[in-house]
């Protein structure tokens, strides 16, 4: 676990992600929560493409399980938490109505091929160089603001590897 956590943080450093955003629980919460957010980025969209996707990694160093309940952003009126699954070669994308659990002492990645933040009804296309402001609401850690740099649409997928058949 520690190795995995270290690896994720290191990856964040290597990929030039901004310093991790930390979420601290409000002072009334019994167990103080800390969730680090790394690898945040959103994907470029075409002019008429009114939906877009964003990705990030949560690291819960605390001893208490948390849950991402919802997200919001000025770039789109609707922001949802989605998952994507492959089922017999068919891609299915679904909303996660119960949010995304972030268990204690864990790393949860939203990355291509898995879960994503879905921007619905983008007011303007997302362009590389731009940064998307995102506010996440966690059950215990409360509100966390994060900036998602926009990556060129063709730039991505490098580190997703698809390494299912290394001989």
């Amino acid at each position, binding site marked *: 676990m520690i190795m995995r956590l270290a690896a994720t943080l290191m990856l964040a450093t290597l990929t030039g992600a901004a310093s991790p955003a930390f979420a601290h629980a409000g002072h009334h919460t019994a167990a103080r929560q800390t969730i680090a957010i790394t690898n945040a980025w959103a994907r470029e969209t075409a002019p008429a493409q009114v939906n877009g996707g964003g990705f990030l990694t949560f690291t819960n160093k605390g001893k208490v399980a948390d849950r991402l309940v919802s997200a919001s952003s000025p770039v789109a009126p609707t922001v949802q938490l*989605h998952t994507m699954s492959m089922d017999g*070669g068919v*891609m299915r994308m679904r909303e996660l109505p119960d949010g995304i659990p972030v268990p204690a002492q864990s790393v949860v990645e939203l990355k291509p091929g898995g879960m994503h933040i879905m921007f619905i009804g983008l007011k303007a296309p997302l362009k590389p160089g731009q940064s998307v402001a995102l506010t996440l609401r966690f059950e215990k850690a409360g509100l966390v603001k994060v900036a998602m740099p926009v990556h060129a*649409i*063709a730039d991505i997928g490098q580190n997703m590897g698809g390494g299912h*058949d290394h001989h």
Partner: protein
Amino acid sequence: MTTTKPPSRGAFIWGGLLLAALAFGLGLAAYLGSEVKPQANAQSDGPGGPFTLVASDGKPFTLANVGGKPYAIYFGFTRCPDVCPTSLAKMARLRARMGKDGEKFAMLFVSVDPGHDKPKDIGQYVTLFGTPIIGLTGSEAQLAAIEKSYGVYVAKVPQPGGDYTIDHTAAIYLMDARGGFQNMIGHDESDDAALAKLKQLVG
């Protein structure tokens, strides 16, 4: 119990080695065979064939417009935030790795979402990938025809609020110049495996 002499320990070891060598040989032969032979030959009864769709300029686009090249064809929709751009970006990346050979095949992106994606929109979308991709769509009937002939699964899934998303096959189909099925690149296939299939397509 003692009437038959058990084979010597040496015989066991040599027998084991022989079996291992045999198994290795068979495995290697199977492996090489699968690498050399195309996984599926172009067949008239396989998926694929001629089609009529609509190009980004609104004009009809048929197999003849591909220009007598083999082609890679992918079905999706522009509102798909993840698997579609990932697949097209992968194709662009692989084509770049092929150098000059990358020009020997065409890339087609077919939007199966005529309700949202207008021809012009698809044309703009495909230009983002930095490699020539032909963006296409069609009428409901034209799309239904190509989905059927290429064996592509497409299903609209209503969303709360009245909109919909689309479940769809996420594989890239590799077709010969006559529209015959050659091979398929799965969504989670490694770049190296996919590249080998593309080289075979243009080889």
